Each structure stands twice: as structure tokens, then as C-alpha cells.
């Protein structure tokens, strides 16, 4: 028995020695004279993999920039890592990237749980994170010094879309279908904010799980509640099932959807053409637009990633990276994390293909506006309303 105790004591001593010697915490530097390393995580495999294209897109922007000689002589190198939408995996891949490869800044980054699991770690290691590919309030309220959000809040979107439906379309009977997660609930909050302001009430508010494939009871509930416009904050597949199911029972409300369902080319195809006439919010210029910047990106995508479909989410990956590139350009030759932070913090009304972005040291929610689109025949985008600000936005009234 005595020997055993001694053995454990020895082990204890060893481990405390190991701990005291202080095995390094610090990450490798994110840049050198030749390259700046950026990275994105996103689900590349598993059920959530359709969201993964956004993480791959910055590689196209990097290739474009590198072809022109990089940013002040430094090339951009983009890493993509698969996390299967699982925060445990996100943590593993992000730590490996930061401590092994050395990452200057993360861009995009899909999935709110994974992001929330690593955001403190990134801040501790002084790694910047620009343009998370989802809107999460906890990312920006309170301000996280190293995290800069581009995505408009779903709440603002909900409020603006509801206003459009009530004022421009003149529909008063509004039903909401929302995914039971922060995304859906924030959208619902936005609708409620606008309706409360107008002293109205939604006729139906129906939660849905992302995995559900049979939604006939949801649609019947909307129909029996008499909803003439239905606002959706759901997964694209859920949206398609809703619209298809409504068609089976001859229910034809005005469907209005969040910007995550604004990939009209895809949505129109997978809904068998039923997406035509649906109104959505949007957080950037349409991928089929004639805007010279969009055309440039489209050509680059064709050249560097011929397999990728240039849809909304692929282009969004480029859009989320634009402000970082801009900041890197502004900083100039003497690159450092602090300098880039300063450049990002002083960014005012910067506009790439996305909304106007303004960041300040005490406000890291970059955009407050959305566009409103309508799906035309064959998945063509029709612009209904240009950049619109939510005048009720709670986070700006302070």
C-alpha cells in the first residue's frame, strides 16, 4: 500500500512539474514577409455540408489578389477546415490551425455554437475574426475586440420585411414559421418588433425543427389561421417542403423568406419552379448582377473554382472577406494585428458587394441594412427595394 502512495505522489510531482514549466499557450505568428494566412471553418461533410461552400469561397478572392501580386507584396493563403457543424470539432480544428499553421485572421466561420465555443480562444490568442457567416447577437453584443461582424441581424431583417409586407403589399394577416434556434427566433423577434410597433399581432407563429421533412400540419395550421403572407426563417430544405406542401392543398399565400433562402437559382430548381414570386431579404448584390465587381468575382470563380456553383453563399464567402482585404490594404507594409484592428475599427461606410459597413471600437455590428428581392421566372433576381435600414433597430438607440 505504501508503494502505491509513493507512485501516485511521483506522478503528481511529474504532472505539476509539467504544468509549471508552462507548456506554451501562444499561437504561431499569422504572417511573414511572403504570406498572410487566413482560414475558415465550415461543415464540408455530414448533414450540414450545404452550408460549407461559404468557407471555400475566400480561396477565390485570395487567388485573385495573389495573381495581382498580393497585398503589399504578401500573398494570401487560405485554409479550409471541416468541422461537421460540431463545436467539438470546431475547437479541435481551430486550435490546430492557430497553433500549428499560425493564422492571422479567420474569415466566415459557419455555425453559431462552434463560433461561440472558439471566440474567446481566438481573442486570447489575438487572432482576428472578420465576417462570421451567420448572424449571432452574442458575437457583437457586447463588443468582442477581435470579432467584426458583417452579416445584418436577422432581427432587423424581420422588422424590415414585415414593414414591406404590411406597407407595400398591404397584407395584414401575417403568419411566421421559424426554425427553433437563434436564427429563427431572432427573425421572429424582428417580426414582433415591427408588429408591436404597429399594434398588430401575427395570426400564427409556428416553430419547426431543421430536420423535419413532413410539414403538412404546419401548413394546414397556417391556412386555418388565415395567414395571407407567411414569413419564414427556416432551413432551405424546410422552405422548399413548406412551399411544396402548400401547393398540394391549394394554399397560396405570399411567401416571404429570410436571406438564407435567397439563393434563387438553387431554390427555384429544388422547389420545382415554385419559388417564383417569393420575396426574400438579401445581404449583398445578386450573384447574377451586372455590377462590375460581381462580374469580376464571377469570372474569377469560374477560373479558380470551376466546380463551384456561383450562388449566394459562395459569393457571400468573398463578400465576408472583402473588409479584411481592405483593412490589410489600408495598413500597408508594416503589418501587425494591432494595425489591422485599428484599420477595421475605423472603417466607415465601406461597401464591397455587400451592405455598407461601419465599425467603431464600441460597435462591431457592421451593417444595419438589407435589400429586398423577388424571385423572377427561371430564378432571376428582381430587386424590389434597395438597401433599407431598420429604423426600429434596438441596438442603435443608445
Amino acid at each position, binding site marked *: 500500500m505504501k508503494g502505491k502512495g509513493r507512485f501516485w505522489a511521483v506522478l503528481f510531482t511529474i504532472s505539476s512539474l509539467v504544468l509549471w514549466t508552462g507548456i506554451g499557450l501562444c499561437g504561431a505568428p499569422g504572417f511573414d514577409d511572403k504570406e498572410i494566412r487566413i482560414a475558415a471553418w465550415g461543415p*464540408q*461533410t*455530414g*448533414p450540414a*455540408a*450545404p452550408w*460549407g*461552400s461559404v468557407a471555400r469561397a475566400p480561396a477565390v478572392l485570395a487567388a485573385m489578389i495573389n495573381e495581382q501580386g498580393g497585398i503589399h507584396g504578401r500573398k494570401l493563403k487560405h485554409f479550409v477546415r471541416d468541422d461537421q457543424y460540431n463545436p467539438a470539432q470546431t475547437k479541435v480544428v481551430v486550435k490546430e490551425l492557430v497553433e500549428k499553421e499560425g493564422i492571422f485572421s479567420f474569415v466566415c466561420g459557419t455555425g453559431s455554437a462552434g463560433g461561440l465555443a472558439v471566440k474567446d480562444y481566438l481573442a486570447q490568442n489575438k487572432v482576428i475574426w472578420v465576417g462570421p457567416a451567420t448572424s449571432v447577437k452574442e458575437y457583437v453584443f457586447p463588443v468582442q475586440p477581435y470579432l467584426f461582424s458583417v452579416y445584418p441581424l436577422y432581427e432587423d431583417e424581420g422588422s424590415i420585411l414585415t414593414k414591406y409586407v404590411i406597407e407595400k403589399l398591404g397584407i395584414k394577416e401575417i403568419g411566421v414559421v421559424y426554425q*427553433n434556434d437563434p436564427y429563427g427566433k431572432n427573425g421572429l423577434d424582428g417580426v414582433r418588433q415591427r408588429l408591436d410597433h404597429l399594434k398588430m399581432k401575427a395570426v400564427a407563429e*409556428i*416553430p*419547426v*425543427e431543421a*430536420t*423535419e*421533412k*413532413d410539414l*403538412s*400540419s*404546419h401548413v*394546414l*395550421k397556417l*391556412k*386555418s389561421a388565415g395567414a395571407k403572407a407567411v414569413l419564414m426563417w427556416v432551413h*432551405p*430544405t424546410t422552405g*422548399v*417542403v413548406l412551399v*411544396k*406542401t402548400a*401547393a*398540394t*392543398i*391549394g394554399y397560396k399565400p405570399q411567401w416571404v423568406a429570410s436571406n438564407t433562402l435567397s439563393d434563387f437559382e*438553387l431554390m427555384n*430548381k*429544388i*422547389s*420545382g419552379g415554385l419559388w417564383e414570386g417569393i420575396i426574400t431579404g438579401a445581404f449583398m448584390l445578386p450573384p447574377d448582377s451586372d455590377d462590375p465587381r460581381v462580374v469580376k468575382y464571377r469570372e474569377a470563380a469560374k477560373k479558380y473554382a470551376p466546380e463551384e*456553383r456561383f450562388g449566394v453563399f459562395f459569393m457571400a464567402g468573398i463578400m465576408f472577406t472583402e473588409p479584411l482585404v481592405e483593412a490589410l490594404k489600408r495598413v500597408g507594409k508594416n503589418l501587425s494585428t494591432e494595425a489591422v484592428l485599428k484599420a477595421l475599427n475605423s472603417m466607415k461606410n465601406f461597401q464591397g458587394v455587400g451592405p455598407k459597413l461601419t465599425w467603431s471600437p464600441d460597435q462591431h455590428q457592421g451593417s444595419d441594412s438589407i435589400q429586398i428581392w423577388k424571385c423572377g421566372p427561371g430564378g432571376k433576381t428582381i430587386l424590389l427595394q434597395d438597401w433599407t435600414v431598420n429604423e426600429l433597430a434596438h441596438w442603435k438607440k443608445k
Partner: protein
Amino acid sequence: MYGQLIVEGLSIGACYAVFGIAVVIIYKTSEVINFAQGEMAMISTFVAYHILNVYGWPFWYAFIGALFFAVLLGVFIEVCFLRPAKDPTVLGLIVITLGAEMLLMGLASWKWGAEQKDFALPFSFHKTHELFKGVVINDWSIAVFVMAAVLMIFLYIFFRYTKLGVAMRATQQNEHAARIMGIKVERVFSFAWGFSSLIGALAGMFFAARSTLDPAYMMEPFLRAFAAAVLGGLMSIPGVVIGGGILGILENFVGFHWPAWKPIVAFLVIVAVLCIRPSGLFARHYEKKV
């Protein structure tokens, strides 16, 4: 409104039932729960999609081609993965089917990518017929009902009057005795897998037409179909059909009144049913002997 709910519930329930039959056929012969069932149907549907969109052949060619592929796939999995297992435990066999599931899902995502695809059947959603006042039924549902009914009748005749069907039942009841009677048990297993895969592919195409086609789209329907099969007793084919119907209607009614609880109510009811009837509603419960 309730009439419409019942129609919708029955039609999705029939779809679960058809897929549940695929689960039951394998369970009936080899007592294995095939967790790869959903993915087998998924990849067969992708084959149909591929024939339709890449080769541009007409629908019925793609349909037949996919069913043919499904049979081959089922036989392949049985012959290459399950048969070589040395004195396997039931859990071991389940893990093999799980491995096959991951394999198939990986292959499909590698080949066709993760993005959703459109898969349409000639039985359209949009065409509706009024049954009673205010209650409509669409072509898709009619096709599902017809398919389920035809399958039921066919399987009834098959298991009762054909040699092969009787051999399958015999294999399930006592493998050794069946072997002694001269039944080639391996061949029966292969046949069961091929047949089950075919039925699964049928149901898979109907599910794909209802939602979208992507490598993960069969996970949820598989669970529901499995639940319907357990509710019916995993052994009896009429049981699965009734189980599917109950599940569909129940889910739709709960979904109408308490949408938040729709995803799990089926499982809660099944647990409750199982507490009273441990072998499902329609299977005879054999008391174990020592």
C-alpha cells in the same frame, strides 16, 4: 381541416409504411436492423437523378435503372459485408450496417456534392382532386396509396403462396431447420436484402419528390419508418402499414395543435405502447424459454 389532416397524415404514413416494409423484410429474415436502409435508398435515388440529369434519359428508364441498381446494391452489401462476418453478434451486424451507412453517405457526397438537388416524379404535387368539400388529395398521395396497396397484396401472396416467400419465413423461424430442409439460407438472405433495397429505393424516390434530394435526406424518414415498423411489431407487414398510418395521423394532429412537440411525440407514444405490448401492436410476443 381535420379531414385534410387525416389525408395528409395517411399519405405520409403510407410512405413511412412502404419504407418500413423494407426494414421489416430484412429483420424478418435475418433479425438485423439495417441502419444503412436510408442511405441505400438515398444512393439509389441519386442514381435515378444521375440517369435523368446527366444522361438525359426519360423518367421511366431512370426509374427502372435505379431500382435495378438498388437490387444490386442490396445483394452486394449482404454478400460482401454481412456474409463474411465470422460468428457475429447482432450488435456486430448492426455496426456493419452503420459502417455501410457511413460508406454510402460518404460516397454519395463525394460523387454528387452536398448541395440539395431537385428530384421530381411524374405524380405531381400541384394536381389536386377534391375528395369531399374542402378536402383535396394530390397525385403524389394517390401514387403512394396505390404503391402501398399493391405492395401489401403482392407481399401477402408472396409470403403465403410462393416457394421463396415460404423459404424466407422458414429461415426467420429457424435457420438451422431451414438449412436442413434444403433451403439455401445464404441465397435467401441475399434475396431479402435485394428485395428490401428495392422497396426502400421506391420509398426513397417518393420522399425525395416531397422534399429535396441530398445525401442526408433519408436520415429522418428512416427513423420514422423504423418507429412505424416497431410500432407494428417489426415482424408483420400489415402491422407496419397500420403502424405507419397511426404514426402519420398522430404526428399531424399533434403537429397541428402543438407544433413544437411534433418531432418526438411519435417516439413517446411508441415507448408507451411498448410498455404495454413489448413486441409492438401486431406481433405475437413469444415468451422466452430457457
